[in-house]
């Protein structure tokens, strides 16, 4: 999740802001529904960001996972559908979404027949095992932690380079069966293997760190050429058999992804939609500066595809710094924050709904409430002042906010500064270079009082959200995710109790209840539930925003009309 969240906040930082049409469900908006897609052609993807890691062991950033889905397959994956339907986990390499036994401590998957790599050889369960083992290697950092956390004996395993014998708790009785033995019951393990970490990697094709530049394909496309920060060219993998794949359409012959383009230029090119750009889509949502031009031109507006997400953005308050250890001061900040101004820095209403709870309404277990209400979400300085006066900090509060040193970071920082100033709180902005940002705010000694943060669970559900952000026992001096340093033994106990629940529905309801309880302590102030508004070229069809990719387009379904 760290990566998933990281990319999100960085996107903000770079000024590539998330946005979506209010009320729209993101269902295939831009494309003419009646124009049938054709097979063939070259799809262009214009990206203002770089792909962080193509190596499936390291891919933990949503945009990279979106692209990765074109190249490699995983045991399970998200359904290729708009709206909440996209949150459903469906079989991919496996014939089903996994069969739990031993009280969900053992998970068995059977691979489909006829799935082949780009060189024509079949995908085997040993390759999946090897792929999962690679995520243990310290040489390949930044990937999801679940294999390391959950597999029996995982804490002692150092990855296939240092430990070539492999991990005993992953069994491959035959070439099509793989069995995972876990150290605890995990009711949503079938969802966890939708992450790229379960993609098969043939051992003889593993080039270690270099695999990042050329992962071996078992999906509809293989990598023809990859120039990091510049361009990724995908061409058809002729060994891919559509009969084995219910998720990927594989319509275009070629997909060219231009990386690291200027965000404003991407918007302008797609607004014009001329020449080659007619066959292009954006990877990231439009920036705030383009919203006006898109919304005021009906022809362009038709090509704006909106998608929901399960991402929540919030202001984290460092509960260990006095006087922020006083709940009244934190509640005052929660009242004072102008959520609407923050959303405007991200593009206005199309950037999403103003958040009032920890769990977004798109997550199971979420229930509507607004513990710190204000008119139109613009903040309530009067309430805030009263609480501050009670706490004895009517006018002397000076706080420091950490922001990435980017246009978006500055804009959001200034919005926080201006809105808290109305309640008599002085906010100083500490700009941090974007590459050092997460290591700084994740360092408990170096982080300051406030930081704008956000979280996307790895799959729809609170199990990869609340336990990671609000468990006081998980506060670490470096690489810390609990930026509020929120430490409540009662909450910790409750988290353990929910994790042990075997009924997923009961667990979801319990998480919802716990989220409301945490909100009373105001360790974070949620301000936005993200939506994404992405531009597509006039000749592109099959476009919809996918909830697993924070509302960005589901690349596997795109095709060209002619």
């Amino acid at each position, binding site marked *: 999740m*760290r*990566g998933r969240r*990281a990319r999100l906040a960085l996107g903000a930082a770079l000024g590539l802001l998330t946005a979506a049409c209010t009320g729209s469900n993101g269902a295939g908006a831009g494309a003419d529904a009646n124009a049938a897609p054709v097979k063939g052609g070259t799809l262009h993807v214009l990206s203002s960001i*770089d792909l962080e890691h193509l190596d499936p062991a390291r891919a*933990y950033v949503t945009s990279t996972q979106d692209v990765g889905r074109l190249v490699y397959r995983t045991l399970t994956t998200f359904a290729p559908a708009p709206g909440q339907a996209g949150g459903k986990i469906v079989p991919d390499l496996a014939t089903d979404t996994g069969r739990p036994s031993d009280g969900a401590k053992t998970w068995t998957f059977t691979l489909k027949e006829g799935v082949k790599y780009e060189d024509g050889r079949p995908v085997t369960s040993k390759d999946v095992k090897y792929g999962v083992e690679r995520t243990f290697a*310290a*040489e390949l*950092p*930044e990937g999801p932690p679940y294999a390391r956390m959950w597999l029996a004996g995982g804490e002692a395993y150092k990855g296939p*380079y240092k430990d070539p014998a492999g991990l005993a708790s992953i069994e491959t009785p035959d070439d099509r069966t793989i069995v995972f033995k876990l150290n605890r019951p995990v009711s949503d393990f079938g969802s966890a293997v939708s992450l790229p970490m379960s993609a098969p990697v043939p051992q003889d094709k593993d080039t*270690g*760190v270099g695999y*990042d*530049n050329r992962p071996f394909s078992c999906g509809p496309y293989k990598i023809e050429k990859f*120039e*990091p*920060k*510049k361009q990724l060219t995908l061409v058809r993998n002729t060994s891919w058999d559509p009969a084995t794949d219910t998720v990927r359409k594989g319509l275009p012959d070629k997909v060219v992804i231009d990386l*690291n*383009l*200027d965000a*404003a*230029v991407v918007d*302008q*090119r797609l607004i*014009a939609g*001329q020449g080659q750009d007619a066959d292009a889509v954006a990877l990231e949502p439009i920036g705030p500066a383009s919203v006006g031009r898109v919304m005021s031109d009906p022809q362009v507006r038709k090509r704006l595809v909106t998608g929901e997400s399960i991402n929540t953005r919030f202001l984290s308050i460092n509960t260990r710094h006095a006087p922020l250890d006083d709940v009244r001061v934190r509640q005052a900040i929660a009242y004072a924050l102008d959520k609407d101004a923050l959303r405007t820095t991200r593009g206005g209403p199309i950037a999403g709904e103003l958040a009032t709870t920890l769990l977004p309404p798109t997550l199971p277990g979420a229930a509507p409430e607004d513990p710190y209400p204000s008119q139109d979400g613009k903040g309530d300085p009067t309430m805030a002042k009263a609480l501050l006066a009670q706490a004895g900090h009517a006018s002397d509060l000076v706080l420091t906010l950490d922001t990435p*040193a*980017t246009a978006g970071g500055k804009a959001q920082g200034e919005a926080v500064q201006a809105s808290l100033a109305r309640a008599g709180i002085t906010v100083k902005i500490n700009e941090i*270079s*974007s*590459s*050092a940002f*997460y*290591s700084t705010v*994740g360092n408990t000694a170096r982080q300051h009082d406030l930081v704008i943060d956000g979280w996307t669970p790895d799959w729809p559900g609170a199990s990869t959200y609340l336990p990671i952000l609000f468990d006081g026992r998980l506060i670490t001096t*470096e*690489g810390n995710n609990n930026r509020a340093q929120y430490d409540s033994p009662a909450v910790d106990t409750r988290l353990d109790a929910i994790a042990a629940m075997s009924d997923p529905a009961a667990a979801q309801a319990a998480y919802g209840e716990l989220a409301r309880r945490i909100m009373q302590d105001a360790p974070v102030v949620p301000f936005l539930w993200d939506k994404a508004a992405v531009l597509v070229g006039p000749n592109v069809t099959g476009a919809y925003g996918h909830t697993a990719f924070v509302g960005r387009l589901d690349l596997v379904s795109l095709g060209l009309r002619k």
Partner: protein
Amino acid sequence: MILYLLRRLAVTAAILVVICAASFAIFYLMPADPAQGACGKACSPERIAEIRATLGLNRPLPVQFWDYLVGIVSGRTYGTGAQAVNCPFPCLGFSFQTDQPVWPMLTSRLPVSISIALGAAVLWLAVGVAAGVVSALRRGSLWDRAAMTAALGGVSLPIYFTALVLQYLLVVKLNVLPYPRVVPVTQDPAGWAQSMVMPWITLAMLYAGVYARITRGEMLDSLGQNYVRTARAKGLPEVTVVRRHALRPALMPIVTIFGMDLGALLGGALITESVFGLPGVGKLAADAIAGADQPVILGVTLFAAAFVVLANLAVDLVYAVLDPRVRAVG
């Protein structure tokens, strides 16, 4: 002449080493930790220690500098075992943020920077020098005053402001040019020229102003010299007088400045490339700075400095060929 050449080469090499040392010292004595910068987002203390060892940051600074110099001339390998990364000659460092050696990152972006610099240079030389010469010949005329006012305006225009005005007028309002993008000259020369027109004009407006002012001043100086009067008195045609006796000496200082300016631009037009979003060396520098990717910043700095120093050398050599007295003094 050969002795002079060798001496100049030695001085140039020495200057480059000094620049290298100064940059190296500044970058590595800075509070920002290069290992932290290289570590990225999912950074654990172990990972930092590992990177530090891989980069050799735990070694004394002079040793690191020596390794760096050796790397430039013969390439080097960072780390050992499965994680070893090879940085072949000429190794200007290795970017752990992008997992690439710095040198190919630079060279892959050089064509864009060269396209921008050369095109702009042709434009500003043609416009600037011509305007300066005409102004000098018609000193005090309406043309002179108009040209010099325009030149002063050009000199005072911030590049990013010019760039935005051009982009607004030509792309958004008049729709006569496409949004700037990378078009290799080999693939589509017309498209290449189209995409480069705005950067060229942007830079040329600034530099043409500078060159027009210098040319005018130098021309007026040389026109006032005795030998020009003598040449005129001899009854030589005016064209010959201007071309041979006034313009040629006036061009000498212009060649000097031109060498320096072109050298600096080849090392990346930082602002121009940033505004137009063109992936040249300057954009690489801007991105590296934004991401605190120190090996890349160091590499670009040295690369750009090398261009300036080599341009200096080239100018000196041209001088030496043109004017034998320089060899004796230099």
